[in-house]
């Protein structure tokens, strides 16, 4: 089995100890291939955010193994030394709210990431402008976040997530603040980018409008995931 993309094996996350211990994730298994966009669906408190944080190397899982783009980041208590560099170089984040840096314009919000990775300012801005053009917001390149509409902000945030061409993108409710048309446009963009850059993308969503667009969906409830094929066809076996 290829380790490119995202691969999770028996991932568990426990909060607290003893009788107060709560398992937010229970032996989760998941695989997302490069170029694939997968949906992660579940009610509030089901463990979506915890799973995203574990994949994003923001919190440590209690057990299990996580591999991103051929690199094991957690393996039953062992973890990669420089998770900050991993987040910078291999993971793109797209949040429910764009969370753009308010004192940087659209271009620099996107260009900041490659700059942090050591890319020259000119090259970073060139990459940023190319992505903004691909996302059809190049005309707002010099605008500050407060001057952008919700949709424009979200596209800039997507550009920021993609600019370092990470092998993995984690998108947390990226279409929540958008209307149907814009929500579908965002998913189209993510699909295009996934194909173009061979990126494995996980989209956490509640959005009924976009759920049918995923070829594969993971349902999560009480920390347990079930895989479902797209277009309403569910697989019989749970993913663990």
């Amino acid at each position, binding site marked *: 089995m290829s380790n490119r993309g995202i691969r999770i094996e028996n991932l568990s996350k426990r909060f607290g100890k003893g009788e107060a211990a709560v398992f937010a994730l229970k032996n989760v298994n998941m695989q997302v291939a490069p170029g694939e966009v997968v949906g992660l669906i579940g009610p509030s408190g089901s463990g979506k955010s915890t799973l995203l944080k574990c994949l994003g190397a*923001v919190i440590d899982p209690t057990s299990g193994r996580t591999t991103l783009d051929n690199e094991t980041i957690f393996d039953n208590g062992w973890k990669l030394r420089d998770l900050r560099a991993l*987040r*910078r170089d291999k993971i793109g984040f797209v949040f429910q709210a764009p969370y753009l*840096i*308010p*004192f940087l314009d659209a271009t*620099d919000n996107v260009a900041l*990431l490659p700059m942090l990775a050591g890319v020259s300012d000119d090259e970073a801005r060139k990459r940023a402008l190319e992505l903004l053009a691909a996302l059809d917001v190049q005309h707002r390149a010099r605008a500050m976040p407060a001057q952008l509409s919700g949709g424009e902000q979200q596209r800039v945030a997507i550009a920021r997530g993609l600019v370092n061409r990470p092998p993995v993108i984690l998108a947390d409710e990226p279409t929540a603040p958008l209307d149907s048309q814009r929500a579908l446009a965002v998913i189209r963009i993510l699909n295009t980018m996934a194909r173009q850059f061979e990126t494995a993308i996980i989209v956490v969503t509640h959005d009924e409008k976009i759920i049918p667009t995923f070829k594969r969906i993971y349902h999560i409830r009480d920390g347990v995931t079930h895989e479902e094929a797209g277009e309403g066809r569910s697989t019989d076996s749970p993913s663990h």
Partner: protein
Amino acid sequence: MINLAVRDILHNWGKFIFTGIGLGLLIGVTLTMAGVYRGLVDDGRVLIDTSGADLWVVQQDTLGPYAEPSSVPDDLWRSVRTIPGVAQAANVTYLTMQVRKEDEDVRVMVAGIAAGGPGTPGWPPHLVAGRQITRSHYEAVADIATGFRLGDRLKIRRNHYTVVGLTRRMVSSSGDPMVFIPLKDAQEAQFLKDNDAILMQRRRTRANPTFSFPGKPDLPDAIITLQTANNYVNAILIRIRPEFTLEEVAEPIRRWKRLTVYDRVQMEDILVGKLIATSAEQIGLFLIILAIVSAAIVAFIIYTLTMDKIREIAVLKLIGTRNRTIAGMILQQSLMLGVIGFVVGKISATFAAPLFPKYVLLIPIDSMLGFLAVLVICILSSIVAIRMALKIDPAEAIG
């Protein structure tokens, strides 16, 4: 690489500038307080420097003539003049008083100077207008800070003096401008009583049976003359010959004349170390309080600015920004706030200094020390905000 600190400041420039101005005014007060202290010290040094003396001969066991009262007979200077090594010796009398100027009083230090000429110890060393005193009575040279002009008439006790010369930066150790008058006039003014008091004193003396000797009818009048005359001065100022050391001249005066002699270093120690010591401590305490208040304000402002950016900092950490980049952003903002505050403070202190009634001396070394202190305060003040920022969990960006 984008300078996040500068971008944030440019984005919130209004908040930053107004905060900087507020901090600057506080720094301005601090610099002015330092200037007040320097002014006090300078006033003392000016008094010593402009007196033209190498040695001060004063009453035994006193810290005269500036810090304590001192009386020495006014004919003693002649014998002091004969001591080897003395080039010039001149009596001087100082009295701080209110001098009448038209409809108002001016607080001045009156200096009675011995007959002589420019260069005589005690004389004003330079004039900015007019001439030196040439008559033995009723002429005056005034410091320009008194507000007198050439030809003005000023009243000391019941005598009127004509201002014939103006000098500059001649002040007492407490900053009062000086007025120079002839020594005899100053001696008279020191103990001059009003007419009613003189009449009363004469009546009392004549009625005193102790002074009524048969066959000596003039005795009470002689006593009255003695009572109203002042044959004392506050000090003798000495300039020594270059081939003698201070101690070579001072030692025989101490031994044979039973007087106390101070040189410039000792006199400066009296003026700066004793006379203004309490004021200096007071100002020092003010400076410490102002520094603490400035530090608290900078810390609060930087902390608040950082608190406003919790989400942005979480995002920055999530996308892989190094801790030192975030700490650098906060530190740079704190330092920039300090720089803005210092510039505003320096400008405000420079413009405010001349408005103070007493001399405020702003010297470059104080400004440099003040600038370094501001930078240190800003660095220390940013520590709280940096610690808080480094504790922010990148997971907060995910929710």
